[in-house]
C-alpha cells in the first residue's frame, strides 16, 4: 500500500520537476515582458534533439549538451530580435500570437532537419533503477531533481543579488520608469529570452532519457508547463516550482488511484479550480489596480 503510494509520488515528482523547469521559463519571460512565450516548449525540444544528434555525430555527451544549450540560447535571442523586437509597439496579445507562430516555425524546421522519428538518449549515469521501500526510482529522476534544484536556486540568486536580475525585475514592474533610470529595456528583454531558452533546453536535455525526444515533444510538455505556471501564479518563481510539482503529483495520483483516462482531465481542471478561488494563482502577486 505504502510502496504503491511512494511509486506514484516518485513518478509525480519526476515529471513535476520537468513541468516546473518549463514553468520557470514561462515565468521569466512573463516577468520581463508580460508575454506568455508559447515557443517555450520548442526550447525544450531543441535541447534534447540537438544533444541526441550531436552525440550521434560522435561529440562527447557533456560537450554535446553544452552546445545544445548554447544553440537554444542563440535561438532564444534570435526569436526576441527578429520576431518580438520588430513588433514592440504591438500589444501583448499580438506578441503572444507571434510566439505561437514562432513555435510552429521552429517545430517545422526541426522536422526538416532531424526528421520525425523518436530518438533515444542514454541515461546520464547507470540504467539500474534505485529501489526504496518497494518503489523504484529511475536514476535519471535524481538528475532531473538535482539539476532542477540548482537552477531554481541559481535563478533566485540571479534575481535578488545581481544588478542584471534586478534590472529585469524593474523592467517587468514598469518599463517606462526602468528606461528613465537608464536600463536598456530591449537588452533586458533579450536577456530574458536567452535565460529562459537556456532553462528550457536544460530541462529538455535532462528529461530526454526518460521521455525520449522528437520534434514535437515540446507541444504537450510546453502546455503542461504553462498550466503549472498559471497554477502557481504567473510571474512567481516559487509559484512555478510549486505549481509544477503539484501538477505532476496530482497527475500521477489520478492515474494510479482514480483512472488513467481522467489523468489529463484532472490536471487541466485543477487550473480551473485554483484560478476560480485564487484568480492570481497560488503565489501570484497581489495587484492593486489604480484607477
Amino acid at each position: 500500500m505504502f510502496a504503491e503510494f511512494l511509486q506514484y509520488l516518485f513518478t509525480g515528482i519526476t515529471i513535476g520537476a520537468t513541468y516546473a523547469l518549463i514553468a520557470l521559463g514561462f515565468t521569466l519571460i512573463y516577468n520581463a515582458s508580460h508575454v506568455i512565450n508559447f515557443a517555450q516548449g520548442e526550447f525544450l525540444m531543441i535541447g534534447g534533439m540537438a544533444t541526441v544528434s550531436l552525440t550521434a555525430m560522435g561529440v562527447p555527451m557533456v560537450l554535446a549538451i553544452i552546445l545544445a544549450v548554447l544553440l537554444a540560447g542563440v535561438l532564444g535571442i534570435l526569436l526576441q530580435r527578429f520576431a518580438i523586437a520588430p513588433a514592440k509597439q504591438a500589444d501583448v496579445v499580438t506578441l503572444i500570437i507571434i510566439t505561437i507562430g514562432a513555435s510552429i516555425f521552429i517545430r517545422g524546421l526541426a522536422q526538416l532537419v532531424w526528421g520525425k522519428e523518436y530518438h533515444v538518449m542514454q541515461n546520464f549515469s547507470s540504467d539500474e533503477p534505485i529501489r526504496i521501500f518497494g518503489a523504484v526510482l529511475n536514476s535519471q529522476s535524481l538528475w532531473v531533481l538535482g539539476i532542477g534544484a540548482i537552477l531554481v536556486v541559481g535563478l533566485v540568486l540571479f534575481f535578488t543579488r545581481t544588478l542584471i536580475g534586478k534590472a529585469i525585475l524593474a523592467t517587468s514592474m514598469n518599463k517606462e520608469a526602468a528606461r528613465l533610470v537608464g536600463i536598456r529595456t530591449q537588452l533586458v528583454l533579450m536577456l530574458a529570452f536567452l535565460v529562459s531558452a537556456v532553462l528550457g533546453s536544460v530541462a529538455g536535455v535532462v528529461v530526454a532519457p526518460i521521455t525520449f525526444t522528437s520534434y514535437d515533444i515540446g507541444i504537450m510538455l510546453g502546455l503542461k508547463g504553462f498550466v503549472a505556471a498559471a497554477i502557481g501564479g504567473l510571474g512567481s518563481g516559487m509559484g512555478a516550482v510549486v505549481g509544477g510539482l503539484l501538477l505532476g503529483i496530482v497527475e500521477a495520483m489520478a492515474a494510479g488511484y482514480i483512472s488513467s483516462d481522467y489523468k489529463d482531465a484532472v490536471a487541466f481542471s485543477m487550473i480551473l479550480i485554483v484560478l476560480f478561488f485564487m484568480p492570481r494563482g497560488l503565489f501570484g502577486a497581489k495587484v492593486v489596480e489604480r484607477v
Partner: protein
Amino acid sequence: MLKTILRRTGKFAAIAAAGLVMSAQAAEPIKIGSFLSVTGPASFLGDPELKTLEMYVEKINEEGGVLGRQLELIHYDDVGNASNARNFASRLIRSDRVDIIVGGSTTGATMAAVPLVEQAKIPFISLAGAVVITTPVKEWVFKTPQSDRMAAERILTDMKDRGITKIGLISGTGGFGSSGRTQTLEVAEKMGIEVLADVTYSGSDTDMTAQLTNIRNTDGVEAVLNFGFGQGPAIVTRNYDQLGMELPFYQSHGVASDSFLELAGDSAEGLRLPASPLLVPDSLPDDDPQKKVVQDYKAEYEARWDSKVSTFGAYAYDGLMLAVQAIEAAGSTDKEAVREALENIQGYVGVTGVFNMSPEDHNGLDADSFRILEVQNGEWKLIN
C-alpha cells in the same frame, strides 16, 4: 506568304494525323489511381507505400505491362487529412478516370473515400487497418492489412497456448490503441480470458509507471498486453523493466518495427508481439510459401531506395499485385469484372500473408498470417 502558311499548316496536319494513328495502335495505359499520406503525421505509412507503388509499376512496365498495356500511376498526397482524401478520390474517379484505386494510408482517409467509390462503382483496395473498412462487407472495397481484431486473436491464442487466462491490459487512448482495446476485450471474452486490469495512457504521456503499478498490484494477473502506437509502447516497455515486472509481456503489431527495438533497448528483452514475416524474412522455414516473396520484396525495396523496408510498404505491394492479378483474371479493365475477379482471388501469396478473398471476406487474411515474434538479444526471433 499566305501560301507558305497554308503549306506549313498542311504539313502539321499530316504529322498530327500520323501521330493519332500511331497512338491509337499502342494500347491505352491502365490507370491505377492512388491517394496516400505521403507527408504529414502519417507519412511513415504513405511514404513507403508510394515508393513501393512507384517501383513496382515501373518494374511491371519494363516487363511488358499487364494485358500488353502499360500501367500508369496517378497519385495524390492527402497529407493525412480525410477531407483531402475525399477530394482526391473524387478527382481520381471523375477527372482522371482511373480503372482501379489502390490507396488510403489511414482508416480515416479510406472511410472518407468509401461512399464515393461505392457510388462510382470502382474497385478500391485500401491499405489501412481498421476492421470497419471491410466489416460489414462493402461491394467495391477491399483491404490488404490484417485488422487489429486478428492481432488480438493472435496474441490471446499465444497466451492461451502458454496457459495464461488472466491478463492486464494497458492501451493508448489514440485511435489505434482504443480500437485495439475494444477488440481485445471482445476477443478475450469469447476465448474465456479474463481482463483483470484495464488502464490507458495518452499519446503524449512520458511516464506510465503509475498505470503499470496499478496492474502489478492487481491480484492474479498472469501476463500484460500493451496495445498502442508510436513512442508510448516504448516508454511502457522501459517502465515495465524499471519496475522489475517479470510477467510475460506482449505488445501489438503497432510497434513491430526495428525503430521500436532501438527506442526500447534492453528493456524489450523477452517481450512478444504479432508481426508481419517481413521482420524475419530469413528465419522463415524453407517450406513457407511466403519466404521468397518476402525476401524478394525486402531486397528489391532496400536496393532501390537505400532505406529500411517497412511493413506498411508491403500493404501497398500486396494491394498493387492483387489489382494486377484481378485485371489479368478479368482480361480487361471492366470494373465489374475486375471487382468479381478480386473477390475470387484464392491463395495469392503476398508479403503480408496468403490472401483468400470471398464475397463475405474482402480482406482475405486470417490471424495466422501474423507471426509471433520474441525479442531475444536485441533481435526479433520467430516463435511460431
